[in-house]
């Protein structure tokens, strides 16, 4: 069997992305399928991430697999000084596939190189989190009917936000127009602007977040402006409420607009938005289940 790990969204071609999304769609139609009943999934969360872990473990169980692992490095041998390689070698002798979250960047790439079984990256530090990007793409495609030619507004922390950078990379295949809406301190890093220019992706930039700015949006992708990102807390206090989406701002928005957020949300989306049919963040999280079922099957070489 071909060993295919999933480490970075940047490794996936347009065709691969589309076929994974199609596979996820089939799982949405029928999430419970007993196709991995002979399999064991190793779920190695060296740092806690309840949301991602539950989603992956539920995906494994809905496919009929059994799950082993840990949810915190404190309960693994890593605290005894065991190397990542040794942990991976040990678990790979028990499990058929490894889902791994690690605080160190590049940990998933390394694990995929030393592991005899496929590895799925469930987040490696500030680097990659490909299953999040895939569920973002799935949500965009599902709500818009296509991934092509969309106006996507990225709002909030565009400097450190791993999810927005990965989304930018993945969308390069689909002729998007991006709109970057962020405070000065958290604007899109230059390397991603260069990336857009190199890939002929048009983009606009503004520090203003208001009704007018979002009037042509197909997707608004909100992110959390984190207090710890600011060296000057006065600045934080000034900007934190500027990048807050309220229901009244959506009055002139397009009919097909949907609002995404990788969650957890704090104050950046007012609770009065939740009942607006354009709010999609909770369904977005649910889509993660179908996408992760597709990813687990894919790395195991199972076609649906």
């Amino acid at each position, binding site marked *: 069997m071909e060993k295919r790990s999933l480490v970075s969204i940047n490794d996936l071609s347009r065709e691969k992305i589309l076929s994974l999304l199609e596979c996820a769609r089939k799982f949405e139609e029928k999430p419970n399928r007993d196709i991995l009943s002979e399999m064991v999934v190793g779920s190695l969360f060296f740092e806690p991430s309840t949301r991602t872990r539950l989603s992956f473990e539920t995906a494994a169980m809905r496919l009929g697999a059994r799950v082993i692992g840990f949810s915190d490095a404190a309960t693994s041998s890593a605290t005894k000084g065991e190397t990542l390689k040794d942990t991976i070698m040990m678990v790979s002798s028990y499990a058929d596939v490894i889902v791994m979250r690690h605080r*160190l*960047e*590049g940990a998933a790439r390394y694990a995929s190189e030393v592991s005899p079984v496929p590895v799925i990256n469930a987040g490696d530090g500030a680097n990659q989190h490909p299953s999040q990007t895939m569920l973002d793409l799935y949500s965009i495609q599902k709500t818009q009917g296509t991934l092509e030619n969309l106006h996507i507004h990225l709002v909030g922390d565009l400097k450190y936000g791993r999810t927005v950078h990965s989304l930018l990379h993945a969308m390069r295949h689909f002729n998007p127009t991006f709109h970057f809406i962020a405070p000065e301190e958290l604007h899109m890093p230059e390397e991603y602007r260069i990336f857009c220019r190199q890939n002929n992706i048009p983009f606009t930039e503004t520090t203003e977040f208001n009704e007018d700015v979002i009037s042509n949006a197909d997707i608004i992708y909100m992110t959390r402006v984190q207090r710890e990102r600011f060296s000057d807390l006065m600045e934080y206090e000034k900007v934190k409420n500027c990048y807050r989406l309220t229901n009244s701002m959506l009055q002139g928005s397009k009919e097909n607009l949907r609002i995404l957020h990788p969650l957890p949300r704090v104050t950046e989306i007012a609770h009065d938005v939740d009942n607006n049919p354009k709010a999609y963040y909770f369904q977005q999280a649910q889509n993660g289940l179908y996408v992760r079922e597709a990813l687990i099957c894919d790395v195991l070489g199972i076609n649906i």
Partner: protein
Amino acid sequence: MNNNKLALQVSALSSGTVIDHIPAEKLFEVVNLLNIPEMNTNVTIGYNLDSKKLGKKGLIKVADKFFTDDEVNRISLVAPNVVLNIINNYQVVEKREVKMPDELHNIVKCSNPNCITNNEPMPTLFHLVDREKRVLKCHYCEKEKNVKDIELL
């Protein structure tokens, strides 16, 4: 007399490699990159020699040693314009320029403290992503770095 003798000893290399046009301040880095302190052959190191191009230059002559591409290309990290003269039977039989390799195996240290390579006993790997601007990308944490800011292992 002694001076003449010395000059003769330095220039008379019957077979081996002369590494020329090393910026003087990079000389000892190049010496270490080529593992010269570990060698048993006759090695001459010239430091602060006069150079029209560089002002002051360094020069290394290694008898009976022919470097592999991999060894030579390491030099490109610290001194991109170095020239190697391959000597056989007192003649320069080949001049080679160093070229930055597409991949650098276990030569460069990743500057990201949160990179797995700085936390696990493992070799590093970098890809050259922009030859003109001399940009390297860590194979693991995917961070990019200019060659002028790198640290060697």
